[in-house]
C-alpha cells in the first residue's frame, strides 16, 4: 500500500523528562487502520502508558493527533484530538479543538505528537519544517492565553504561526482545565489542559511550508465549492453558521431542554436574553472560522460588564458556554456570560465544567450545605452574575473556595458532605453538557456508557429520528443506514438503542478521522456518508468504504473501553447521577419528566449486546478485539482499581 499524500508520515515522540524528541514514520497500514485523531492517540496510550498511573504522573501519556483531511482546502478539516488519562475522573480523556493550529501542525510536518514525562522547568515545543525542539517557557508561565500567543509570535518573529497551550488553569492543575488554540478555541473536556500543565509543557508552536497533498485534489475542490452553494439549503447547519451554536437556544428552551438551575428544570425565564439571535443583534462584531471552513460558526464579540471590557481576541460564547455560565447558574445577562467566556478562555478553563461546578455549588449554597463562611463571603446564589464571575477566577487561580471547585464537583461533593452528591451532574467525573437526557432519551445511554463520561458529541441526538422533528433529507439518509421506521417523540426502545450505537460508531469515526461534526455527519450535515467516503478516498487514494469507516470508529471505541477496563472501570461505572432520575421542575413540556433507572439498565444490556461487549461487565471481549485487529491489547493484565471508583459514584 502506498502512503496517502494527505499525511506527512511523521509522528513526533517527546520525552519531557529526558528532554528528547524522536520522529517515527509508521506504515501506511497503521494510518489506514486507526484513521487518525483519537483513534491513533488511543493506540499510543495503550502501547506506552503503564497501567494505574495518576493523571498528573509524568507517566501519563498525552497525545495530540490530527486527521487525513487536516490542512486540505475543505470545510471541517481543521480538528485536533487530545487524549490522556483524565484528571477529572480517572477514565480515558478525550477532547477535540479547531482553529488553525491543526492545519499548521501538518504544515510544520507532523501528523501526531506523543508526549510523556515531565519537564523540570516550563518548556514549549517548537515545530517547524519537520524539525522539533524544546525551548524554555519560564517567561510564559502564569500569563493569560492571549498574551502567550502574542509573546510567542513576537519573539519567534512570525505572526503566521499557531499556538496550542494550557492556560494558568492548566498550570494550576484545575482538573477541568482546557487546551486552548487562538486563545478562543478550547479542547475543553476532560481536563487535558491540566495534564499538559502537569508536564510543564506550556505550549506547542507550529508553522512551516509542508504542502498537504491529495490523491485526487479535483474531487476535494469539487466538494469544497459545492458546499458554498449548498449551505443555505441545510437549514440547521445554516442556523449555526449565521447565529452560532447559541442559535439553538430558542429551540432548546421551547422544548424544555435548556438545562436551568443546575439541570433541575428545562426552561429558563430569561432565555431570550441569551439567544444567538440576541448576540447577533447586540454584541457580535464578526463571525470567525477555522482553517479553510466556509461555515464561519465561531463568534467574536465585544462588550463590557462591571466596567471590564470583553475583548474580541477571546472570541465569543458557544451554546454550551451560554448554558453553563448562563442558564445552569440562572444568569440571564448576556454581557456577564460573555465576560465569563473571556475569563475561561484567558485562564484556559472548560466552560462547561466551570459553569457546572459553580451551579453545583449554588445548589449546595441554597440548600444550606455551604454558607458565606465557606465561600469567601460570596453569596453563591442562582442568578448572581457577580458570584459566577468571581468564582471563575477563584477556580482558575485555586483561590479560597475556588480551590475546592478546582478539584471538580465529584471531589467537591465529598468535601462538602451531607447530600451534596444529590446535586451532581457528573458521569465518570465529567460534568454533563447542555443537553438533557431526561428529554432526549438516547442521551441517557450515551452519557452512561461513553468511555470519557457525559458527552454531547458522541452520537446523534433523538430529534432527527423522531416524528415531528425530522425531515425528508434526513429520512432518506436514515434509510441508507437501515433505519426505516421513524420513532415516536420521546420514545426509548430497542430501535432507539440500535440508532444510538450506530451513530456512536459514526461519531467515533468522525473523531478518528478528525472531521468537524458540523459539516460532516450522518444526517443533517453537508457531507453525509457518501460524500464523506468520496472525500476520504480522494484525500488518501485508498478505497475506503463506509464499512471501513465504521470499523475505524469501532476500533477507537473498543480501545477506549479497553483502557478503562485496564484502569478498573466496568458496567458499574456506566451510570447516571441521581439528579437525572428525579422529576424535572419548572415549566414547559419536560416538567415532571425523569429517567427510569431500571429502563436504562435494560437499554444497557442491549447496547452491550450490539457492541459485542460482555453484558455482565460492559467490557470488551477478546473475541471482539481480535475481530478488530486489536488482539495486541492485554485485557487481563491489570484490572484492580482504587481511586477511580471513589470519584465515579
Amino acid at each position: 500500500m502506498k502512503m496517502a499524500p494527505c499525511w506527512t508520515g511523521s509522528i513526533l515522540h517527546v520525552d519531557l523528562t529526558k528532554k528528547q524528541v524522536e520522529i517515527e514514520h509508521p506504515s501506511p497500514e497503521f494510518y489506514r487502520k486507526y484513521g487518525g485523531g483519537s483513534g491513533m492517540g488511543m493506540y499510543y496510550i495503550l502501547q506506552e502508558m503503564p497501567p494505574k498511573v495518576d493523571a498528573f504522573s509524568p507517566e501519563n501519556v498525552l497525545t495530540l493527533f490530527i486527521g487525513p483531511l487536516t490542512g486540505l482546502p475543505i470545510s471541517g478539516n481543521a480538528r485536533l484530538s487530545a487524549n490522556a488519562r483524565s484528571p477529572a475522573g480517572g477514565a480515558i480523556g478525550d477532547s477535540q479543538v479547531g482553529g488553525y493550529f491543526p492545519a499548521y501542525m501538518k504544515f510544520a510536518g507532523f501528523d501526531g505528537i506523543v508526549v510523556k514525562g515531565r519537564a523540570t522547568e516550563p518548556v514549549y515545543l517548537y515545530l517547524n519544517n519537520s524539525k522539533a525542539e524544546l525551548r524554555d517557557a519560564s517567561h510564559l508561565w502564569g500569563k493569560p492565553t492571549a498574551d502567550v500567543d502574542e509573546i510567542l509570535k513576537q519573539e519567534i518573529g512570525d505572526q503566521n504561526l499557531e499556538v496550542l497551550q494550557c492556560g494558568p488553569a492548566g498550570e494550576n492543575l484545575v482538573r477541568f482545565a482546557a487546551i486552548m488554540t487562538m486563545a478562543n478555541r478550547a479542547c475543553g473536556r476532560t481536563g487535558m489542559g491540566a495534564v499538559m500543565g502537569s508536564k510543564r509543557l506550556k505550549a506547542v508552536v507550529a508553522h512551516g511550508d509542508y504542502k498537504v497533498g491529495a490523491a485526487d485534489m479535483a474531487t476535494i475542490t469539487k466538494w469544497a465549492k459545492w458546499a458554498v452553494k449548498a449551505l443555505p439549503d441545510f437549514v440547521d447547519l445554516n442556523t449555526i453558521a449565521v447565529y452560532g451554536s447559541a442559535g439553538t437556544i430558542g429551540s432548546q428552551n421551547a422544548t424544555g431542554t435548556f438545562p436551568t438551575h443546575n439541570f433541575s428544570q428545562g426552561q429558563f425565564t430569561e432565555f431570550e436574553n441569551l439567544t444567538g439571535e440576541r448576540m447577533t443583534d447586540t454584541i457580535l462584531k464578526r463571525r470567525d472560522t477555522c482553517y479553510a471552513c466556509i461555515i464561519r460558526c465561531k463568534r467574536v464579540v465585544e462588550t463590557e460588564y462591571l466596567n471590564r471590557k470583553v475583548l474580541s481576541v477571546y472570541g465569543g460564547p458557544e451554546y454550551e458556554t451560554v448554558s453553563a455560565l448562563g442558564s445552569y447558574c440562572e444568569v440571564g445577562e448576556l454581557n456577564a456570560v460573555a465576560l465569563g467566556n473571556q475569563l475561561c478562555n484567558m485562564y484556559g478553563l472548560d466552560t462547561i465544567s466551570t459553569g457546572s461546578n459553580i451551579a453545583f455549588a449554588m445548589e449546595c449554597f441554597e440548600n444550606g450545605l455551604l454558607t458565606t463562611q465557606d465561600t469567601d463571603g460570596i453569596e453563591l446564589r442562582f442568578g448572581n452574575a457577580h458570584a459566577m464571575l468571581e468564582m471563575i477566577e477563584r477556580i482558575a487561580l485555586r483561590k479560597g473556595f475556588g480551590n475546592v471547585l478546582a478539584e471538580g464537583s465529584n471531589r467537591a461533593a465529598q468535601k462538602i458532605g451531607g447530600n451534596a452528591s444529590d446535586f451532581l451532574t457528573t458521569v465518570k467525573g465529567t460534568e454533563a453538557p447542555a443537553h438533557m437526557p431526561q428529554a432526549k432519551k438516547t442521551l441517557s445511554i450515551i452519557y452512561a456508557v461513553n468511555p470519557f463520561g457525559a458527552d454531547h458529541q458522541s452520537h446523534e441526538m433523538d430529534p432527527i429520528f423522531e416524528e415531528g422533528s425530522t425531515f425528508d433529507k434526513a429520512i432518506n439518509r436514515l434509510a441508507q443506514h437501515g433505519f426505516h421506521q421513524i420513532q415516536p417523540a420521546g420514545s426509548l426502545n430497542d430501535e432507539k438503542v440500535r440508532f444510538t450505537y450506530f451513530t456512536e460508531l459514526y461519531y467515533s469515526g468522525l473523531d478518528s478521522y478528525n472531521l468537524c461534526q458540523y459539516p460532516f455527519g450522518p444526517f443533517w450535515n453537508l457531507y453525509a456518508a457518501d460524500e464523506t467516503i468520496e472525500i476520504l478516498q480522494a484525500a488518501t487514494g485508498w478505497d475506503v468504504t463506509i464499512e471501513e469507516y465504521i470499523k475505524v470508529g469501532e476500533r477507537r471505541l473498543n480501545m477506549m473501553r479497553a483502557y478503562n477496563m485496564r484502569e478498573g472501570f466496568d458496567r458499574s461505572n456506566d451510570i447516571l447521577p441521581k439528579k437525572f432520575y428525579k422529576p424535572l421542575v419548572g415549566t414547559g413540556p419536560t416538567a415532571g419528566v425523569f429517567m427510569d433507572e431500571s429502563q436504562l439498565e435494560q437499554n444497557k444490556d442491549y447496547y452491550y449486546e450490539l457492541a459485542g461487549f460482555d453484558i455482565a461487565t460492559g467490557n470488551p471481549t477478546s473475541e471482539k478485539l481480535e475481530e478488530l485487529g486489536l488482539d495486541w491489547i492485554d485485557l487481563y493484565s491489570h484490572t484492580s482499581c482504587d481511586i477511580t471508583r471513589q470519584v465515579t459514584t
Partner: protein
Amino acid sequence: LICIVILHAILRDKLPPEARGKADIDIPEDSTIRDVIVKLDLPPGCLCAVNEQIEKNFDTRVKDGDVLRFFRASSGGNS
C-alpha cells in the same frame, strides 16, 4: 385575525430584517398552524409552540392573539 409569530434562528430570514424575528400577521379566520407555515414559507421539519405550549397537530386552528413560536429541533453543538 391577528396572531403574533416569533421565528427563531435562521427562520428569522422569512421576515424583514427589521422585524428581528417577531411580527403580527393577519390571517383569515379558521386558519391553522399549517396555513401559517405555508404563508411564511417555513421549511419542513419546523416545530411550533402556541402560547408557549408545544403543539404537534398543525391542523390546530389559530385564535386571535395567539403567540406562535416556530423553531427547528436542535441536535448538538460544539463547546
